């Protein structure tokens, strides 16, 4: 059913939508090469702000701290997310299942100010309690507490990604392995894990970027001296336009785009390879 008017509407709407999504990103990139310190007044092409960036210790240290937290967060999120996803897909009945799935899913939409505040108040209460009991308070606000908060968020996203992969997996593969005498843990490590490896990689990347980008949880959970990159950017962006922020933004967009595109191409290749192997295995 060809409908030229409909096809035109469809094209225009899609192009318009993508323009809306990408216009701000393109603006960021173009203006990062603006020589003028007045961000939006063009005064010629320059790499000046990238040079400034290299000397900007707040940004550099913030980036290194964010990177460290993001690596820790992504790893913990995928571990916990895999556990939670397996629990939700393989065990249809256990005590507190509804409550459990509610706790896993709620952080996806719960406003971050609520999560940040409640977690902070809990950690502070814990710190005061341990101070009363042992003389030294634990935990101090900083890398550790930010990591806990980010992991709560990352785990929720990781669980969604891994759960949907586990659902669409052919259960006969695991059953076949069980029938052939594999023990449940062997089935998990030798059959299930390799089959969901792509979802694990996506979940890792997703929680990594979430952590690298988070402002609100970090602001609540950070202590003196633990200024992550987004906190540094946010405090500048609040004050007004800042050319170094544009330079940081451009570098982020560059790295993320290359990373995501490369990862998806690689995953698509893996997927094709697996499909071929699967087809070959089914034939014999």
């Amino acid at each position, binding site marked *: *059913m060809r409908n030229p008017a409909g096809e035109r*509407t*469809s*094209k225009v*709407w*899609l192009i318009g939508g993508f323009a*809306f*999504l*990408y*216009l*701000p990103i393109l*603006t*960021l990139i173009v203006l990062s090469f603006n020589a003028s310190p007045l961000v939006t*007044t063009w005064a010629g092409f320059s790499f000046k702000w990238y040079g400034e960036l290299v000397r900007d210790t707040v940004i550099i240290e913030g980036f290194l701290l964010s990177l460290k937290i993001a690596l820790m967060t992504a790893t913990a999120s995928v571990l*916990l997310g895999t*556990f939670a996803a397996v*629990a939700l897909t*393989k*065990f249809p009945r*256990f005590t507190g299942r*509804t409550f*459990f*799935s509610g706790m896993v899913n*709620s*952080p996806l*939409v*719960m*406003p971050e*100010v*609520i999560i940040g*505040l*409640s977690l902070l*108040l*809990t950690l502070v*209460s814990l710190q*005061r309690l341990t101070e009363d009991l042992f003389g030294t308070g634990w935990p101090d606000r900083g890398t550790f507490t930010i990591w*806990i908060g980010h992991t*709560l968020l990352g*785990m929720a996203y990781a669980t969604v990604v891994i759960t949907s992969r586990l659902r*669409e997996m052919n259960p006969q593969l695991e*059953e076949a392995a*069980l029938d052939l005498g594999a*023990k*449940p843990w062997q089935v998990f490590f030798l059959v299930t894990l390799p089959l969901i490896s792509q979802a694990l990689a996506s979940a890792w990347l997703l929680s990594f*970027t979430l952590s690298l*980008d988070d402002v*609100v949880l970090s602001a*609540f959970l950070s202590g003196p001296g633990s200024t992550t990159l*987004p906190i540094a950017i946010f405090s500048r962006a*609040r004050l007004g*336009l800042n050319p170094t*922020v*544009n330079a*940081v*933004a451009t570098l982020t*967009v560059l790295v*993320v785009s290359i990373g*995501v595109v490369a990862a*998806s191409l690689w995953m*698509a290749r893996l997927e094709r390879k697996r499909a071929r192997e699967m087809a070959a295995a089914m034939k014999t």
Partner: protein
Amino acid sequence: MTTPSQIHWLDALVARLGRKFVIGVPMVFLLLVFALPFLVVFKISVSESDGVRFVDLLTWADGILQLKVRFSNYLYILFEDALYLEAYLSSIKYAALTTVICLAIGYPFAYFLARSPADIRPGLLMLVMLPFWTSFLLRVYAWKMLLADSGVFNNIALAMGLIDEPIKMMYTPFSLTLGMVYTYLPFMVLPLYANLVKMDIRLLEAARDLGATPWQAFWRITVPLSKGGIVAGALLVFIPCVGEFVIPELLGGPQTLMIGRVLWDEFFANNDWPMAASVAVVMVLLIIVPLALFNKYQAEQSAGGRA
């Protein structure tokens, strides 16, 4: 199939412990960092603070167990200072407005995306996801450059002679709504797309054969069938928008009161932790119904797996 009796008792033990471990580890983590904090927030919201410490709710004095609960923060929020109620109402208003606009833009977008040629569809989908992966903070900041009085839009319009003086767009309800729609649009598009792409096209063909116009077929078949995606997308936009902080802080102004900012200021500027906790508790009460709906939807999604 292997029957339980065929499994060695040791393997059965390992399997049972494994199951306990797999459920227990995330369960304990979530109880400690998600469920318990809500109780703590509630406790602190009704606690007295002497500036540094919170007075215990339960005290044992002169052989009498005393329970001190202070609802004054809640009374203050509800009756004393109109600011709080206004902020709550205005947050709900902006969240609802954002949700409606996201649906109006996002539904046709997702629909056309789902009906686009199969060979370019993965590429287009990736284009929707890509902004989602790049920093949300920086994308919100980018709108500041576009909308400011001396920003890109005003500069271009001035240079072209369309306007004589810059139009005030930043720090208005317009810039706030635009920023929220922009940020949350992919959250609307993705569940709608996932739903629409699975739809059986033959249903529409049948409708056409039976004499329905494309428009009738769309409203009476496509839309009702995509209800799940609409609900999911709307909740994914509405709930976080109610408590949004970063966007109102960067793009909103004095006219745009949002409760997320009020909470932030109570905590960071006024250092009034019990008050911030009370604001948070009331906010949770506001979103508890949509949140329950969302959880129900997610549970159905995971239960209805292989259809």
